[in-house]
């Protein structure tokens, strides 16, 4: 027995520590359960298509003789795929090795012998709790058409439709919205059941002994009651006695109440959850954006910055803890979320990958305390991300720098410098101002030297910029970190260098296109 225990423990530790095993399990878990996993949607789409194919074959089979291969595909291939999926879900749902290890460590901790029976019982309990969950039952029933020779089991193909709940998020949202009104729906169901039960019995008692009445059985009475209370009223079964008609009047009145109550329940459930649903959708959309700027705080400067970035076709996400400011951002057409940018939890909830998705974080509140708090929060999550912040009071500059902010913008200082230059050299100032203005036709741009450009041009002299009426202001050498103004023709280009060019926006584009496409002959 001890040998068996040791074998189980060793095997558990071995599996738990196996990187390849864990990697495979993580892959299947992500594929089956993790909504943010990029390949899950393809898996879901495939499964949805299999379900519809299966239903289509079932419908076609009713009145037509289908090809044997289709029947085979539906009964065996699809069922087998669903069976594999079911087993995979059962596998990834919980970790047997972890349960055994936990039990072993618990027993060791309190100085007891490892209880293999209890460990296996825990494993069984965990696995069975999954097996008996509604979703798992539906999954299992969807596999049953495998035994299609049993005609009854073929109808279980319809259970495959219920599997759609797994793959379509909107169904899950619908279910979660309705779940919030569980108590109200339960009350409604009880009320309707009582009315149906009482009215069925009453109508049966009143009508069943009358030879002219169409209601002869309790089943017919229940059928009539359900049809009436739902306000459908087919009219195929109607009471003919005065007493029966009196009962009908009561049921009709109750039916109106049930219908009104049901409608109001749906409406109120969705109204209450609408913002949450929208937010969930927004978060989902954010996870699909490759690169965006995160603006923390939406006040006057933030609004202007957001507008400028939008004009340059950059993606922007706004976070603000103040509801009214979030609404303002939304009115301006930006994706804005009512989250506190100074809270780590906000970033976890948003499920964003700061290192890969966020181009820069802009702390643009008109409040140094808030900006420092936000910067520290971001820095605690990511050390590398570029953070820019507004500074409202010069005395706080050091605090912002200590908080890890890369670039501090102090509007008062800007105004001071601007007044100095615009008074001293107004024309030059205007010229530079124009170069920086995205709206002007003459622009300064950065062109990164790529491997492809290097194939075409190896030095400044080969750039052919004059043909495109473009001025090369300088080159920023990546390796040395130096900027070389007005570089000589024989300066070599290297991958990762930046050319600073000035010219008409259109000509710069043409120049850049030429750099990438021209061929040396």
């Amino acid at each position, binding site marked *: 027995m001890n040998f068996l225990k040791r074998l189980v423990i060793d095997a558990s530790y071995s599996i738990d520590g196996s990187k390849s095993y864990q990697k495979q399990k993580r892959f299947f878990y992500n594929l089956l359960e993790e909504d943010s996993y990029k390949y899950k949607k393809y898996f879901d789409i495939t499964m949805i298509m299999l379900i519809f194919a299966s239903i289509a074959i079932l419908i076609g089979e009713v009145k037509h003789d289908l090809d044997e291969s289709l029947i085979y595909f539906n009964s065996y291939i699809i069922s087998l795929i669903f069976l594999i999926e079911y087993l995979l879900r059962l596998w990834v749902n919980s970790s047997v090795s972890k349960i055994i290890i936990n039990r072993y460590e618990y027993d060791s901790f309190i100085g007891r012998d490892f209880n293999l029976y209890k460990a296996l019982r825990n494993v069984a309990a965990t696995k069975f709790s999954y097996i008996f969950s509604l979703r798992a039952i539906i999954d299992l029933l969807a596999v049953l058409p495998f035994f299609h020779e049993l005609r009854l089991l073929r109808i279980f193909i319809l259970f495959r439709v219920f599997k759609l709940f797994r793959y379509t998020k909107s169904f899950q949202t619908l279910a979660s919205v309705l779940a919030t009104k569980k108590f109200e729906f339960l009350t409604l169901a009880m009320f309707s059941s009582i009315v149906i039960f009482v009215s069925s019995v009453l109508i049966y008692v009143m009508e069943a002994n009358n030879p002219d009445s169409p209601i002869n059985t309790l089943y017919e009475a229940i059928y009539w009651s359900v049809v009436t209370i739902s306000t459908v009223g087919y009219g195929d079964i109607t009471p003919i006695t005065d007493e029966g008609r009196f009962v009908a009047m009561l049921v009709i009145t109750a039916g109106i109440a049930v219908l009104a109550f049901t409608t109001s329940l749906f409406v109120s459930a969705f109204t209450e959850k609408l913002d949450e649903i929208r937010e969930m959708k927004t978060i989902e959309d954010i996870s699909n954006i490759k690169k965006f700027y995160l603006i923390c705080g939406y006040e006057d400067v933030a609004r202007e*910055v957001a507008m400028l*970035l939008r004009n340059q076709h950059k993606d922007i996400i706004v976070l603000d803890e103040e509801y009214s400011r979030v609404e303002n951002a939304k009115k301006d057409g930006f994706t804005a979320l009512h989250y506190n940018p100074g809270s780590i939890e906000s970033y976890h909830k948003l499920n964003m990958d700061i290192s890969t998705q966020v181009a820069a974080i802009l702390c643009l509140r008109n409040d140094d305390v808030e900006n420092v708090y936000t910067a520290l929060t971001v820095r605690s999550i990511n050390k590398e991300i570029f953070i820019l912040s507004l500074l409202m009071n010069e005395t706080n500059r050091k605090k912002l720098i200590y908080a890890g902010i890369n670039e501090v913008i102090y509007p008062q200082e800007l105004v001071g410098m601007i007044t100095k230059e615009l008074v001293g050299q107004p024309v030059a100032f205007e010229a530079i101002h124009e170069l920086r203005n995205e709206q002007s036709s003459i622009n300064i741009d950065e062109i990164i030297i790529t491997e492809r450009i290097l194939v075409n041009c190896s030095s400044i002299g080969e750039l052919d910029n004059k043909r495109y009426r473009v001025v090369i202001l300088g080159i920023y050498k990546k390796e040395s970190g130096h900027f070389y103004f007005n570089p000589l023709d024989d300066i070599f280009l290297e991958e990762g260098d930046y050319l600073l060019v000035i010219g008409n926006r259109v000509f710069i584009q043409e120049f850049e296109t030429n750099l990438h496409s021209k061929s040396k002959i």
Partner: protein
Amino acid sequence: MKDITALVFGFNNYASEIIDNVIQKYKKVYTYSLDVKDAENEKYKIKNFDLSDEWNEVAELINNNRCIAFCVLEDDAQNIFLTISLRASFKELMIVALATNKESADKLEMAGANKVIPIVKTTADIISNIITKPIATKVLHSILYEESDLKIAQILVEKADDFHGEFPADIDWSRYKGILVLYIMHADMSREFIYSSKAKHNSLINGDILIVTGYERDIQEFEKLIGSRKYVNWGNWSW
């Protein structure tokens, strides 16, 4: 520049930054505040004023000196009122005013400000530039605010004959070592990029101003060859 007197109306963080930046460039800087308590400030010498039309003391300064006024009151409405008061009293006075938003900027221009600095927009422009074109912004910033040896200068063309009627876009500026010519400004204050269509069809004449960038020594050499450094009187120049 040293013959100009600066008048700063309003005392706040913006005013102190302006004073610190321009104090070396002007003959004298006078600061006025609406708040009587500001007169006790130890660092700056501040006088009081109100928004009535009594500009006796200021009038004396303006009439006897070349002056430039900075309207930097925090309240936009008061700033506009101040600007219109100054313009109504002093037709020739150069007025630079700060505005928090575009609406105020438009009103300040209507009130007669020669130059309006929209604070929010200017800050937003800088932020946008820093994050989208960091290298270009850094270089332009260092040129404009003289944080490096690179300078930008306005050179008045006085020896246009040397160019023999060449068009600016066709001139091989590289013969002037180390200089990049970016813009040409004509006598009518219109400005164009060196490679614009107009610059390709209008030859350089005396009186044109070239906006060049380069190292100070190279700019000085360039000056000797074609003209002189030009400080533009921007009384008739607008943003």
